[in-house]
């Protein structure tokens, strides 16, 4: 089913229902999901145990998605972790800023799980290839 080492994916979203559904989906797909309910918690978890990929909401109270990305890109341990935005903002300007800060993907809500699965697989493969 999966390689010896299961890929660890960090899900940061203040919206509990979305976060739980994404984790559930990841588990069923054979990944190892971790959940953070806000930006600060997400940064903490990522720095403690750098994940293989991060799925992050954009608009959150406190530190928002941009803040999380900027912080993690500045840390050597997490600078190269694939980072995917999951956001309800349809503003293309937000997407542009996200990419400028170093995001790898920008997925707008609502999204198809199949599409998300494809993106995660492809990003993980690319990251492994680089190593």
């Amino acid at each position, binding site marked *: 089913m999966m390689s010896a080492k299961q890929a660890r994916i960090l899900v940061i979203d203040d919206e509990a229902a979305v976060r739980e559904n994404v984790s559930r989906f990841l588990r069923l797909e054979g990944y190892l999901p971790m959940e953070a309910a806000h930006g600060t918690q997400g940064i903490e978890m990522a720095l403690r145990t750098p994940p293989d990929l991060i799925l992050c909401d954009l608009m959150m109270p406190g530190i928002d998605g941009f803040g999380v990305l900027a912080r993690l890109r500045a840390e050597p341990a997490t600078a190269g972790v694939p980072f995917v935005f999951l956001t309800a903002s349809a503003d293309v300007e937000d997407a542009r800023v996200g990419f400028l800060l170093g995001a790898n993907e920008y997925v707008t809500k609502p999204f198809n*799980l199949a599409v998300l699965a494809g993106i995660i697989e492809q990003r993980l493969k690319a990251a492994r290839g680089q190593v």
Partner: protein
Amino acid sequence: MNDNDSLMAAAFEVAGIGVCFIGEDSTFLRVNPAFCRMLGYEQDELIGRPWHMAAPPDVAAEHGRFLGAVLKNSPKIPREWRIRRSDGSFLTALVSARAMDVGGGRRCAVVTFSNIDDRLRAEEEVRRLNHDLEQRIEERTRELTERLAQLESADNALRRSEERYRLVVDNVSIGIFVVRDAHFVFMNPRALDIIGYTAEEMDGAEFLHIVHPDERAVVMDRHIRRQRGEYVDPHYELQVMRKNGEVVWVALDAVLIQWDGRPATLSFAADITSRKAAEAALRSSEEQHRRVVENVSEGIIIVQDGVLCYANPSTCRISGYEAAELCASPFLTFVVEEDRAKVMDRYQRRLDGDTTAGDHYEFRIRRKDGEIIWLVISGVVIEWGGRPATLSFITDITERKAQDEALAKSEERYRHVVDNVSVGIIVVRDGRFAFINPQALAITGYTMETMIGSEFLPLVHPEDRAQVIDRHLRRQRGEQVESRYEFRVLHKDGSVVWVDLAAVAISWDGQPATLSFISDITRRKAVEDVVRRSEAHYRSVIDGAPVGIVIVRGNRICLANPAMLDMAGFTEQEMLALPSFLTCVDESDRAFMAETARGYVDQRSGDHMVLTFRVRRKTGELLWVEGSTVQVEWEGKQATLSFIHDITQQRRLEESLQQSLGERETILETSVVGIAFLNADGRVHWANKAMRELFGVMDVEITGRSLEAYYPSREEYLRVGAAVSVAVRAGRAFESELRMRRGDGSLFWANLSGKAVNSSDLSRGTIWTVLDVTQRRQAEEDTRRALAQQRELNELKSRFVSMTSHEFRTPLATILSSAELLRYYGDRLPVDEKTEVIGSIESAVKRMTLMLDGVLMIGRADAGKLEFQPGSVEPVALVRAVVEEAARAAASDGSGLKRLDFSSASTEDSGMLDEKLLRHIVGNLVGNAFKYSAEGTPVVVSLQCEAGEMRLSVADAGIGIPYEDQARLFETFHRASNVGNIQGTGLGLAIVKRAVDLHGGRISVESAAGIGTRFDVTLPLVVPKETKES
């Protein structure tokens, strides 16, 4: 009868075809047996009878023409005739005919008839068989033909269905008529109705009869052109005359048709009188408008992209160009070179919306005839063809400019005269010198600088001061004072100078003053003295004196010096021979001269008598002179000695001064712009009519006063004053738009511009123009307001779009991911997880529903459809329940726990409230308090019900609401600037506000960013009567 004839006769008798001979009298001459059989008559029943007994009536005429042509030898081809038999039945025969001479110059027609009925029947039979054979095909074809036929022209359709035709034509609301050979052959009821005649009256009537006389030529022309085959517009409008004489406008659509086989015109007529009347009214209003623009005496032009797009006739008259010539070249080409830069600058600034570009300015253009004229232009920016252009009014002010120049010249002349006149001129105001000319200075020996502003009295000889003061006081009291007197002046060098002074009261810079003409009469005084002592001794002095000297005794002139002779234009001999000195005086002055002289002589006074009068020279010329007379003894007898000064120049100067003042005043007084002169101290010296009307004040109310009262406030007056002072000192004009106050206290927008009369001498005061620009300002204001409203609506729209975008996408993401989890992984999900996933769909849907409810509720409230349904409610219990519900919801969404502090005090258990609305109020306020405050901070809710009121207060120590957001707090979709990513729709407080309003209650907020927020809501527990009814 020869053989041939016999043969022919036999053939005639036995032939199978019918033959008959028809005479020129149309009777049968001979008939053969076959003809008789064919017609079913005996031979003698036919001979001598008219031939048309055998012709059906409907074709008799046609047959007649045929026979007539035959008799005239015209060759005729055989043709088919229907023939009537004796039994009334008909048969068809092929007929051929030729003419034949029967002797005696008479002719007859030989006509042969062959019966083709059988052949026709046979053909018919064949056709019928064919018909039968092809029936199947034809049936289909007929169906199609029928359908086609239905679609054929109205003409055909009408012919086919008499019934339908009548129904339609008689009831149609359009008049229908047919004209053939210029006569009506058909009219439907509506057509008759339009012209007010009955069908009987119109039967066969001429078409032109009903056409309005003015239109007949046009109608005839159309008719003739159509007959010639030219294309004529089928649609046209004309006036027709009703039977009762009224004129009706009708619109006609005419088509050519065949009517009974002949060309005719079928027309459809609609009564358009009322439309025409409306058009006429419109035209006349447009006409009036146009007439105003075309006839207004001002020029009106529209300039776009530097080129004239419109010029009214006055502009053409002023410029001497045709409108087409004006519109062909850039506007600037008409402006004289020196003024182009100025005009271009103004034009550009005006287009750029610079309101200080000024409403009026002047420039010169070169007329077509080369003449250069001055124009004043005032313009506004308008839309022309969807793009900006300037609409300007121009007035030819060349004449006014010429007057201005004349005025300037006249003033220059005046100055020249004043500076060069041989008499001294001074103006004294408040006892001080306000003006003094070089001659007057020469008399005193002082310089201009020391004299202006110095006191007058110290200059007067101490012995004469009492007299001068006395005169002054008496004049001030309004007593009649001799305008002329003599006194002594102290010269700078200490010498005494005798002066003669003539004073008039004038207004100088708005204040009473005395204008005096002074002459040094020291020499004259000396001469007078000398003469008194020894005439003979001083003869030479007299002869050399520059003043006229004359001695009169009785009526006789005893002595006249050369100066006097020169003045009067006589030789000494002539002069001495005159019957009286009065002979030299102008006729109109003689009576008063004689009178005054007599009175003076009778008094035997030693005083001088000074008179101003006119001398009529021998040459007829008039001189104004001033005579100073004293009584002397001459050769032992009483006589008068007079000194005559020529003051003509001085008089002219006075008159010219008066006139130039009058001219200036007239020009300024009639200007439409408010104009005022202000003294250096800011008081109004003079204001024109337009100015007085603008402020709604009388002359006396404004003259001599400051303009402060016409400013909205003293601060404003001082502010403008300071700005004016700066501009004026720099030699610039001050211009501004500001509010000013009328006499009745109302405010208006004024364009104010001021300038120093003479920028190098500010004591000359300032000149001001004021224009009422309220209307223009008002229009600008309205536009700004409309734009602001538009911007607000746009903002609301974009707030709504961004809110719905985010707030819908989030629950949709939950729903979609849940649905896909169940679809693709449903078999691998444990039951409890499945339940949880389904639950998340339900709560997302609930969240969206709540939001939609909110939007709908706002929509209903804004449309006035949100209902207020009060019922008996126990506020304390309800509020407590809602608060606890909100606290639970807040705890479950993970935003952290807060310390809830709920307290209530109540003297009233229940009240009339709308439970649903109250839930919204409490739920939203408490929900916000939890949502916008940090974990562990307190949320304090307190409720009081007493004295018929419910008072609820909700306070938190959260992020607060920035001051600048508080004003728009209750606006739909508006959220404070500091909410960050905290979710929200911007609807909650908008709903709260509407719910409170429906209760007839009040809501207020106290908040500071970063400190906290407190809302206070007061609702009446007893429903106000009017609310209940609504």
